[in-house]
């Protein structure tokens, strides 16, 4: 049959990131708040291979159970990534820069699921794709994810998460040398967490 390993790499690429530690997943799960919806601010710093300066950006993100993820970069220029059950859309201003539909790209649902789990710290879900290794202490935890599938591992590199009731930071180190650090702040939950324009977009 004809198949395409490349598509697995697509998934890897969307996640983009290596690290290790021991796994009291249940303990971490118990620590995490599991809100229906959560929004907050992020500060992101990327260090791309071959570039001197890190690229800093910031914006807002929302995660809604059963619906998807909205990732809005506001600085240095607006860019929105919306992941819903049926599609992944990237908007540059008003222009659709990229759209992947689940009907044509079955992995869209999977990508959506992984990103949702990543941002909401749902380690139970991530467990299907990754070996989860970590430590949990007083109200804070730290885990490293290692993809179970070698090809995926090769492409993603390593992801590590830190948090408490919510995920606080994500570090991604890709085999290619590009690295990304994301710090979350100002996290709100409940229906009021949304900004009006965000509610409209998701």
């Amino acid at each position, binding site marked *: 049959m*004809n198949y*395409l390993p490349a598509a697995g790499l697509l998934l890897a*690429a969307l996640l983009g990131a290596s690290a290790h530690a021991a796994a009291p997943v249940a303990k971490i799960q118990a620590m995490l708040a599991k809100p229906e919806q959560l929004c907050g601010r992020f500060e*992101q710093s990327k260090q791309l291979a071959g570039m001197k300066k890190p690229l800093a950006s910031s914006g807002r993100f929302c995660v809604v159970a059963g619906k998807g993820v909205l990732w809005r970069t506001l600085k240095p*220029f607006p860019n929105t990534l919306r992941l819903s059950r049926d599609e992944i859309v990237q908007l540059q201003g008003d222009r659709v820069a990229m759209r992947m539909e689940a009907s044509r790209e*079955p992995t869209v649902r999977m990508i959506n699921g992984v*990103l949702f789990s990543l941002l909401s710290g749902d380690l139970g879900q991530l467990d299907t794709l990754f070996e989860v290794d970590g430590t949990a202490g007083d109200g804070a935890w730290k885990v490293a994810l290692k993809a179970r*599938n070698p090809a995926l591992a090769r492409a993603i590199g390593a992801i590590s998460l830190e948090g408490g009731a919510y995920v606080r930071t994500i570090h991604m180190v*890709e085999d290619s040398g590009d690295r990304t650090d994301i710090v979350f702040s100002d996290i709100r939950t409940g229906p009021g967490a949304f900004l009006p324009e965000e509610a409209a977009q998701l």
Partner: protein
Amino acid sequence: MITHRRLAFAWALVVCLLAGHNAWLWLGKRVNPDTDILALLPAGERDPVLQRSFTHMVDSAQQRVVVLVGAETWRDAVRAAAAFQAVLRPHADLLKEDAGANAQAAWLDGFTPHATLLVGAADERALRTQPARYWTENALARAYGAFGGPKLGSFRDDPFGLFANWMQERAGETPVRPRDGHLYVGGEGREYVLVTYTLAQSAFALSAQRRAVPLLDAAAAAARRAVPAAEVIEAGVVLHAAAAGSQASSEVETIGVGSMVGIVVLTWLTFRSVRPIGVIVLAIGIGFLGALSVCWLLFGRIHLLTLVFGASLIGVAQDYGLYFLCHRLGAGPHEDSVRLLRRLLPGLGLTLLAAVIGYMGLALTPFPGLRHMAVFSAFGLVFAWLTVVCWFPALIGPGTLRRGWLARRYRALVVRWPRVSARPKVLAALALLAVFAAVGCARLGTDDDIRSLQSSPQHLVRDQIKLGRLLDAPTPVQYYLVRGASDEQVLQREEALKRRLDPLVARGDITGWQALSNWVPSARTQAERLALLDATVLAPDGPLAALAQTLGEDRDWVAATRAHLRDRAKPLSAEAFLRTPASEPWRHLWLGKVDGVHASIVALRGMRYAAIPALSRAADELEGVQWVDKVGGISAVLGRYRAVMGAVVLGAYALVFLALLPRYRGRTWRVLAPTAAASVLTLAILGLTGQHLQLFHVLALMLLLGVGVDYGIFMQEDPQRGDDAPWLAVGLSAASTLLSFGLLALSGTPALRAFGLTMLLGTAFVWLAAPCFTITAKERHEATVTA
């Protein structure tokens, strides 16, 4: 008497030789009959390149078993699939699991040196139309985005995402995705694990079918035990072949047992003994062995279909035995069997001659398949006939047979039978029949579509269709064959063809295509593309420079990135691509050099059958591009076989007429008329019941000629004696033909059904019509006088 004893002894020697030769063939050499239908096609029609393309597309599929194990959740699907695989794993000698998702290590490496040149269709259009700003913004979004769209390698490897988009376009050619070390397909609310196996033997090998199918069933059962709601969808030629085989063998069992019992009862009621059956089976058996030996000596091979059809044609040989037996029954104890045989010899000789003439007509056709069958049947008849002549007088002496209940009652039937004559009532009846025949025949259409001959079980067809839909697999029997003087020319021609196909995709005739040029553009296209990139994204003061300015990088970075990208723009050749692991799923599309010509296949996904004419036209005027429709091709061959066979049947009638002329003179037409009339009436009924004439109807008409001529000869041989032996022989022969071939009309296999129905109607009509054309001694005398 003495001479005949010597003859019987000599024949015993010949039979020993035949038995020895056969034992050596089957037990010593262990010959296997051919099963490949293509082996029966005319050799002259085989275009080697076309033939190779069939092999690539169909034969590779022939050895394949594709399995989807699905469940509501991926986790369950994986569990069920693991149970399925575990059952088959110890049997890798029979069904070998393909590498699947684990073959992807270092997958991308093959593309790295060429990545810059690999640009998808949409991006290529954008490169021609979008301003530099578009590309700068695009690159910025990718640089800053945490999850910024598909990405392969680091940012500087593909700042504009062209390579990633190209890869996504390629991924679009199949919905199959690797997932957690498995191959995944989703659809219709389920998640499936795809597992493929390669069968070690031909799908048509009986031993493979017998082992593979129960194993697959056991594996499916294991999957369902692991996950009760699991769905297992299987497809593979071997499943269809096995289903067809088991259907055929169960039918042969029921129909065979039914007809055997019928014939035994019939013989008992006629002769009060089953010995006649024993000797007739002996004659046919020797005929079969003899035919097989001769065929092997002449052709060095034997085809399964030859055996099946040939064996049925040899069945005609029962008539010789029955003719003798009925006369033995009628002759009484005073006449010894050898003298009786001498008396019957002219009639027996002519029946053999007529049948052999008929079958030899087949041998003159350009089809090896028919030629084999002709030789097989003709020699089989000769051997069976010789057995009757050499051995029957010795085996069945006077007083061996007694007139049974049926033989006593049956005679009375024929006395009041209507005769063909010039009486007005008879003429009116004939005219009515003629009109009926004309109307019926006029309505008879033809249908040579191979698909109408398929009779796979519903669940297999359903699985096949569902699997095709879930996998969006290309059709293996319709495709384009592209030829050229070099790889480059082939790729260029593929690209020209694909431009022609674009509108067909837009119209929904096809959803897409698979072609090697999707992966390896022609050198010309690669050169044009590099020039395009140099003029746009790689231009010295283009998007890269603008990007550097925004990101705070200097000119050195621009130069280094540009050099890096240029460094990854080495021309990619088909040959190099085919060496990479990434090409594994596409290798069947590339035929390489065959007979000095380079060739490839462009396969179609999501094809609508209604679009076949449009697809065929798309290849028009494109040099080196040929539309191949294997279903249509085989159907066309079947159609030609049908037409040729029709002509052969007519020719056989003419030849048989000439062969009979010296003996029967003015009465010759009376020998052939019952068969001819029965054939026409059969065709008329087929027409009136809305059946379409196909090859197997015509093959049955050929057999009917063999059977019918015998009846005609028997009835014409000695009407002056007022003997009931011929009539009894015809009745017994017809009844057993109806039981053996006529019952095939109940078969679930369309080809056998067509064959059986024709035999059923035809034999019944010949039986009914044979006495109508006999003449009394008085009439015969008058006829001779007037002549």
